[in-house]
């Protein structure tokens, strides 16, 4: 696991051993701490007792999943057939009463978006961004090769651990392009998280394909550079409108002078409105920006070391993992997006109603959590 490059084979044998080892018995797991909570699932830090190994256990309340059991089954299968060092896979999953327990690797440092929120509000340094993006891109090359579109690429789904490993997680919304034996021309359902969504997903005219992930990847690059995604502080309606109507966002403000030309070019190439003009994940990986990047062990560890100085009030370091909550919220949100949009169909009046909900939330002032959560609350 330590070796990053050329470590695939080693990693595989490690995994197949692990897969055999983890039991599917409730009593073998001790849930020690809640590290994230969404409407239908809670994620716990847990100990797998027979090995005394720390794992994450996602407990999904099946009773709250009304008609979409098949989606959950598909997700469980995807997660158990994933084998890539930069993707979160499931060790195993089993049913406990009316909950589905999914046992996953525990990522000690939580997500990139959380790290930015607690210590790097203005974003990360370019070498760190480069490492994180390159690892994420490798995950996308793999997923796309397998026929999967991730559909929810964003800093909140990029998880780190203290050894410097970067993993992309959450297959709650992923679509399978090769479903039912035919290559699907394109998908046409409305999933993801608004700020990161490609225009072709939002306008629903021609459907979308793998390239939708490349757009989200570009938005994620901006997010890591600035500490937040473009428009993330705006109400939902404006996010949708701006993504569709404005010129694509980029690294072209004064504050972006610190970034290299090749970084800017890489971002611009992802954020082209016409999906056919965006590079494939494989091609993007060959972009000059990713040449000669430092190993993530080095950059990410440097980033984590910097944390100590930056966080003044860190009496509960586990709190940092609370970020994982959004993973769950977003899995839940899929349905609500589907519903919301098919009803609305961009009926402006409806959208206004929803954006006023956001304002209402703000006035109440009890929302100390991140933007993404705020966006999601509109749907509840």
């Amino acid at each position, binding site marked *: 696991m330590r070796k990053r490059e050329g470590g695939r084979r080693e990693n595989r044998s490690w995994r197949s051993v692990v897969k055999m080892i983890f039991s599917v018995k409730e009593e073998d797991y001790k849930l020690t701490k809640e590290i994230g909570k969404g409407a239908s699932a809670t994620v716990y830090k847990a100990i797998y007792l027979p090995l005394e190994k720390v794992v994450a256990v996602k407990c999904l309340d099946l009773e709250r999943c009304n008609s979409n059991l098949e989606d959950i089954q598909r997700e469980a*299968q995807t997660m158990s057939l994933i084998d890539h060092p930069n993707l979160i896979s499931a060790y195993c999953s089993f*049913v406990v009463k009316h909950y589905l327990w999914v046992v996953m690797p525990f990522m000690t440092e939580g997500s990139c978006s959380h790290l930015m929120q607690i210590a790097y509000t203005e974003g990360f340094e370019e070498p760190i961004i480069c490492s994180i993006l390159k690892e994420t891109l490798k995950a996308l090359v793999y997923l796309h090769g397998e026929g999967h579109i991730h559909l929810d690429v964003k800093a909140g789904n990029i998880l780190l651990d203290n050894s410097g490993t970067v993993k992309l997680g959450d297959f709650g919304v992923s679509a399978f392009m090769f479903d039912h034996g035919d290559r699907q021309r394109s998908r046409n359902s409305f999933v993801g998280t608004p700020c990161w969504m490609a225009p072709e997903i939002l306008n629903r005219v021609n459907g979308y394909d793998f390239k939708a992930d490349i757009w989200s990847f570009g938005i994620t690059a901006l997010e890591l550079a600035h500490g937040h995604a473009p428009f993330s502080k705006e109400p939902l309606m404006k996010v949708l409108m701006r993504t569709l109507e404005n010129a694509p966002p980029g690294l072209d403000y004064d504050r972006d002078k610190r970034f290299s030309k090749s970084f800017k070019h890489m971002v611009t190439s992802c954020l082209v409105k016409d999906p056919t003009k965006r590079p494939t994940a494989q091609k993007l990986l060959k972009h000059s920006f990713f040449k000669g990047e430092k190993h993530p062990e080095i950059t990410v560890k440097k980033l984590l070391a910097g944390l100590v100085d930056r966080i003044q009030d860190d009496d509960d370091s586990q709190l940092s993992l609370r970020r994982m909550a959004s993973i769950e919220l977003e899995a839940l949100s899929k349905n609500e997006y589907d519903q919301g949009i098919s009803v609305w169909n961009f009926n402006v009046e409806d959208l206004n109603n929803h954006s006023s909900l956001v304002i209402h939330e703000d006035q109440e002032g009890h929302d100390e959590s991140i933007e993404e959560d705020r966006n999601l609350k509109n749907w509840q």
Partner: protein
Amino acid sequence: MKGLFKSKPRTPPELVRLTREHLINVDLNTSISDAKREEKLAELGKLIRDLKIILYGNSESEPIPDACAQLTQEFFKGNTLRLLIVCLPKLNLEARKDATQIVANLQRQQVQSRLIASEYLESNKDLMDILIGGYDNMDIALHYGSMLRECIRHQSIARYVLESQHMNKFFDYIQLPNFDIASDAFATFKELLTRHKSTVADFLTKNYDWFFAAYNTKLLESDNYITIRQASKLLGDILLDRSNSSIMLRYVSTLDNLMILMNLLRKSSKNIQIEAFHVFKLFVANENRPPEIENILIKNRSKLLRLFSDLKLDKDDEQFQTDKGQVIKVIEEME
């Protein structure tokens, strides 16, 4: 410039033949060294990936129908499907996944408007026995399971599986503790019992007694939440299907069945209650209710009415409301 020196790409039939040779090697050579073996497997994995790309295209190109047809023809001519299935446990994970997608795709490829996959499977039905046996092996269960579901798209193959001894095993596979495998087995079970209407009706008529006995005791009376929930939903789907109407009438005329469904109505899970309701309503709607069923309904009238007044869906469902109203009305008016 580089492109000029590339060797000529292999034609689809060449690729299939080469894959076949490699598969035979992997199948037979058990005595070669590990390093050599790894190397052979990597080559084979690459070939299988190339086959997949011909059938599905990749992120840059769409598949070409003529190439697909050539590939399909060669594939079935040379018994490659059998080799691929038999050798699957020896392949690495990525090659297994690619192989699964290839098998799925081949089931739909038409060559001169003939489904040659169907013809091939007709005379190789024993392959289904191998695929079903996959549910006993965690490592390959999901791959074989997914291939199996593709094969039973062909009516004659579904009939073979339905009429085989394997049907009985599904009741156990569905309850395997690993969620991903159990739900895969359930997906196959459901496909078998819903896809080919007349074949299913025929099977259920001939196998009514043992099948529903097993269905009731192993699935509906299971301890596993997800088993009960899926099984009660599927039971509703089966009984409500027009082609199964005589089976439905038989089912809803049996007191034991009614009692099982009434127990499900009392479960703490709302989802299970709702699914159970959709079956329960058929007992009530039956105009020729046997006296013992009528009796039980009358005896429990007030409890049933109380239960239904509390049973509500999260979102409005007109059909459910109408059904519920009718059930309540019939129960109220029973003498």
